[in-house]
């Protein structure tokens, strides 16, 4: 499955990109994070949430939609 992964704020500084396409053959958000921590070790120490199809999801959620985003703490307003 091709995933489109978006990075925001501090996380985009670490990945040095705001968006990338990735081939993903495993199941859950936790699986994806394991791959991303391999690619970007500095992500591991950061506080963030994962959005799947524009909803915040838990780590054990199965990925069924290509739109994934890594969101640092919100600071609107």
């Amino acid at each position, binding site marked *: 499955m091709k995933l489109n992964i978006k990075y925001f704020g501090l996380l985009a500084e670490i990945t040095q990109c705001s968006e990338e396409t990735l081939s993903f053959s495993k199941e859950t958000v936790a699986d994806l994070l394991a791959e991303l921590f391999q690619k970007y070790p500095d992500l591991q120490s950061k506080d963030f949430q994962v959005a799947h199809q524009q909803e915040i999801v838990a780590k054990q959620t199965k990925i069924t939609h290509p739109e994934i985003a890594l969101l640092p703490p919100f600071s609107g*307003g």
Partner: protein
Amino acid sequence: MSEKKIKNVFVRGAISPAFIGESIAKHQSKTEIGAHAIFAGQVRADVIEGKTVSAIEYTAYEEMANAKFHEIREATFSSYDITCMHIYHSLGSVASGEICLFVFVSSPRRKIVFKALEFVVEEIKAKVPVFGKELFEDQSHQWKVNS
């Protein structure tokens, strides 16, 4: 999520005080309204480790943010007897002293508007993926975290 059209809440740069005045003026024909309550978030020139914030640069996960603003809007209308409500949030750079968030609720009765206003602002802070980068006068920066 409702079927209603999702509005774009974001505006480029700061929200001007004159725009807020004009928004109020537009409600003078709605003579069932008895009370307006407005929240305006202003960028503070905080001093952090000796450096002063000169601006905040806002980015957002725009599609999700607009969907969340829409959900907040629907939840507010279903929980509070309000006549209308408007939300505007800045994207891009907003200098200290300028306004980055404008929330406006109106109702026939005053007691409702205080509760509705606070609800909307707290929901925005908690649920909307907007990210503020605090820019210091020496060009360095840090990522803001809401308290």
